[in-house]
């Protein structure tokens, strides 16, 4: 059964009529994993069972052509979480937000995947969704453009939230809500 957000996307794309859907779907931040230096969070729509980053890795895991790159990208998440911290030098700049993998000067390998994210501070990173980037710029790439736009929108909203934290933990997690 498709989740509510992908159905919305399907209708929006396939309909030949101009739809003016005003559907309020809310999202929250959920904790994904805490490492020594970084606590990773992700965005979860209220009607979805998985967070955005879990949707991303599920899609990569099930695609034999992308799985190996996804494993390498996943190791970077662990390495930054345990050894480096939320240092912007180790992330790609994506306008308002950031992305994995690190720039090639640091990763030393070509990884075509993009996992959009947002560095709240050196101890807190929010992981979004992404895909295999096949065109430049991201806004024109059919695989990642909607993830890119979502990442910009969520980052803008998260910046306006009053996040209270203690190291790698967001302490007022349940109070934080924004539009999906």
């Amino acid at each position, binding site marked *: 059964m498709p989740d509510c957000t992908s159905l919305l996307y399907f209708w929006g794309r396939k309909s030949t009529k101009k739809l003016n859907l005003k559907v309020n779907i809310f999202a929250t931040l959920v904790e994904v994993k805490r490492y020594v230096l970084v606590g990773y969070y992700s965005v979860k729509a209220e009607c979805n069972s998985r967070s955005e980053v879990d949707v991303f*890795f599920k899609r990569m*895991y099930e695609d034999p052509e992308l799985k190996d790159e996804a494993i390498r990208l*996943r190791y970077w998440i662990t390495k930054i979480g345990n050894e480096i911290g939320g240092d912007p030098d180790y992330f790609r700049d994506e306008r308002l937000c950031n992305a994995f993998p690190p720039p090639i*000067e640091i990763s030393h390998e*070509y990884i075509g995947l993009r996992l959009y994210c947002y560095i709240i501070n050196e101890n807190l990173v929010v992981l979004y969704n992404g895909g295999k980037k096949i065109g430049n710029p991201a806004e024109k790439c059919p695989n990642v453009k909607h993830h890119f736009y979502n990442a910009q929108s969520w980052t803008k909203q998260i910046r306006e939230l009053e996040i209270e934290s203690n190291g790698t933990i967001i302490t007022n997690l349940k109070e934080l809500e924004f539009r999906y």
Partner: protein
Amino acid sequence: MEESYFDKIEQDIKKEHTFFVDFGFDFAKQVKYVLSIHPTIKTQKDLAIAMGKRESEISKMLTGLHNLTLESISKMCGVLDYDLILTDIKAQHKYNSHLVSVGAAESHNYYILNINITVQVYNVLPAGTVGGLDFLNEYLHSSFMQPIAISSDGRQILS
């Protein structure tokens, strides 16, 4: 509860993935460090000139778009006059060279352990005390008054 693919894919990370990422990361950090302390070769451009290559080639070597070969690593070490790869065995020789011989008796060579060039002084421990380097390291940060002599393998306090 649904299985987390974020966790599941982490379990698929193999040693070859971690070694690949860590080696490239550590090697580039090492080169960056050497460039920061080198008297004449300060930038990738300087390194390119010294190696007789284009700057873009050096950039590719350090970013993994171009496979780093033993030949290119060796050439880099040569122009920098710096060993960019320190193995366990080389490290043992490098740091054991700080042991300064002060005499020999019977079958043992006696040394005073030099740490960071200055001589550390320690309390005299009973002769015949045996322990590994970890055991001896326990005494490195204390304020002791008299030197000790240890055997050449670093395992026995001699006097």
